[in-house]
């Protein structure tokens, strides 16, 4: 009784003495400052992109959102993001379709299946992949992956060309397509997704798993009933982290993709482009106006990333009841 009445009369005791001590005030200031700094940086990026972009878009001679070509150095300039937006989303989607199941599988294997002596080296190995610079992936992709995917491409073209998606216009052309880029991006984001997912799987309360085991569940049922539901929001967050890298990947895409302003559903054709690849390709020779135009495309990528992240947040929020992370 006594405790209840005191806590009702006074402000929470933990707060007042904390604010008066010097160390606490300094720490409060520092952490608040960091938070504000982040907001300021984000706002500065957004303002910078917007101001430069509006200038460029206002001088664009064709529709910025529906034009395929990127000819900012022409007079009058004519450029658009249709192909870039399509290529960025499609290659990232392919990457996610491949990488997420594999990553979850690796993480599950490391945390729940592999013997201890195998698990930790395997975990290091995966982390190692994340340390490889993207230009190395690009070189490997261009020199090794592209020639070696030709067989898979021909097979897909032979048996699945009726889908339209896997029809290859010229079977002889090299596999420097959005499909190959998607596979390469998948390899690049697997370590990121695996790493985060693995940590989330480790957080699953032992009690949940033991309870499931006690009810007679097999190992797979334990994973399905206690591990995956608990980790769902974590898996989504991990996937978003990977998606962020896939959306913004530059050098690997620029090395592998045969970029050209063609928008097609045929994923095996060596055409297309992505935002980051286009910026890398056009930046060096661009004049001031050309750079503003590229910045405008960067702004669109920024917005797409925000939207995708927002969508992920929504999904996590709706799934919160399953997740231990909400507690």
């Amino acid at each position: 009784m006594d405790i209840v009445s005191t806590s009702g009369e006074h402000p929470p005791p933990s707060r007042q003495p904390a604010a008066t001590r010097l160390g606490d005030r300094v720490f409060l200031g520092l952490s608040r400052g960091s938070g504000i700094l982040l907001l300021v940086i984000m706002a500065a990026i957004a303002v910078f992109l917007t101001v430069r972009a509006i200038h460029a878009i206002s001088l664009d001679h064709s529709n910025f959102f529906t034009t395929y070509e990127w000819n900012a150095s022409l007079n009058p300039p004519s450029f658009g993001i249709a192909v870039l937006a399509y290529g960025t989303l499609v290659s990232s989607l392919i990457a996610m379709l491949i990488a997420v199941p594999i990553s979850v599988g690796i993480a599950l294997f490391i945390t729940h299946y592999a013997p201890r002596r195998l698990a930790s080296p395997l975990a290091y190995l995966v982390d190692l992949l994340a340390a490889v610079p993207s230009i190395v992936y690009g070189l490997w992709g261009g020199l090794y992956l592209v020639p070696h995917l030709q067989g898979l491409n021909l097979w897909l073209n032979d048996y699945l060309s009726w889908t339209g998606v896997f029809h290859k216009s010229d079977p002889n052309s090299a596999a420097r397509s959005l499909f190959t880029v998607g596979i390469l991006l998948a390899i690049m984001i697997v370590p990121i997704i695996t790493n985060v997912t693995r940590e989330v799987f480790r957080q699953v309360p032992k009690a949940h798993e033991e309870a499931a085991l006690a009810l007679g569940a097999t190992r797979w049922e334990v994973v399905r009933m206690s591990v995956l539901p608990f980790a769902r929001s974590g898996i989504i967050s991990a996937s978003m982290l990977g998606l962020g890298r896939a959306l913004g990947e530059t050098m690997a895409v620029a090395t592998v993709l045969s970029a050209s302003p063609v928008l097609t559903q045929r994923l095996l054709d060596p055409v297309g482009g992505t935002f980051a690849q286009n910026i890398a390709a056009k930046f060096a020779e661009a004049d001031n106006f050309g750079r503003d135009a590229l910045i405008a495309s960067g702004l669109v990528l920024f917005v797409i990333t925000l939207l995708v992240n927002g969508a992920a947040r929504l999904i996590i929020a709706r799934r919160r009841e399953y997740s231990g992370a909400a507690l």
Partner: protein
Amino acid sequence: MKLTRKTGLRSLAVGAIAVSSALVLTACGSDNNSGSSSPSGGASNAAASIKCGSKANLLASGSTAQKNAMDVWVKNYMQACSGTQINYKPTGSGAGVTEFLQGSTAFAGSDSALKPEEITKSKAVCKGGEGVDLPMVGGPIAVGYNLPGVDNLVLDAPTLAKIFDSKIKTWDDPAIKKLNPNAKLPSTSIQAFHRSDESGTTDNFTKYLKGAAPSDWSYSGGKAWQAQGGQSAPQSSGVAAQVKQTNGAIGYFELSYATASNIPTVKIDTGASAPVAATSDAASKAIADAKIVGTGSDLALKLNYATKAEGAYPITLVTYEIACDKGNKPDTLDATKAFLNYVASDDGQKGLSSQGYAPLPAEIATKVRSTISSLS
């Protein structure tokens, strides 16, 4: 506790191995790209004839096409004139011109002459004067192909235009057969490669197609590739690599890349008595056929792409150094003039052909030198 520390150490070690092996890998990669086009020739006896300017720190940037020539010139000049530092950054023509117009460099290297609005802007940097184009490095753009069993392929401008516009799709097309009656042309499909990045090479190559085959090339031209179809790769090295490894491929790049990778190049049927191969000499002859279109001390050139001069290779690129005619910065003026004078001198130009560039023809070189002497 002990366990975690140990694993931490181990992961550090593994990480270190990863990083160092990655570094080794990237080193290999960049080695590969610049490859054998690295500067070598022309370095030996040039030093004797260099007239040094006053000591200064010269900053310049721009065209990547000039890079290999610049590397040799800068090395020779700095050897002869100790105390002068020259730093040429191959950032690309666009970036080079931008930096020059901001006043942060002494001169710029560019694949294309200044545009009228850029000349207007240059008046802010050049007090009392304006930016001028000095032609300095020329070079043939080779059209390389990969067609085992076919040597000495001959093409003309309309056929090239149709190939790169995806109108001619196989190697045994009648138009190609007509130009190569004795060659055994396969029915392989043509894989035409262009640059995915914006570049002066593309600009000059498409200017040639438009100038020599206007009815077959309907695009306006520019640094970005505009035709539909075909495949692309970044940088000349990327296009050359693709042509090298793809059966039935054709692509365009500076001659040095063809020599470095042993890629056979197309001879151009210009209407002269014999088809012309891409060589430095043949490019110099084409530059000699060019007209000066710059006004005042500006020496911007307009190439005659439809040239029928004997032995002149029409797909040629001229790159410029850009400086102020009046109002150069006083502390770097003397060194800039001395360096550019050396570059335009016979000694400076002589070493170029071993690297796949074309020396300026004598008449134009003389004009360039007299303009350089008048810079102030």
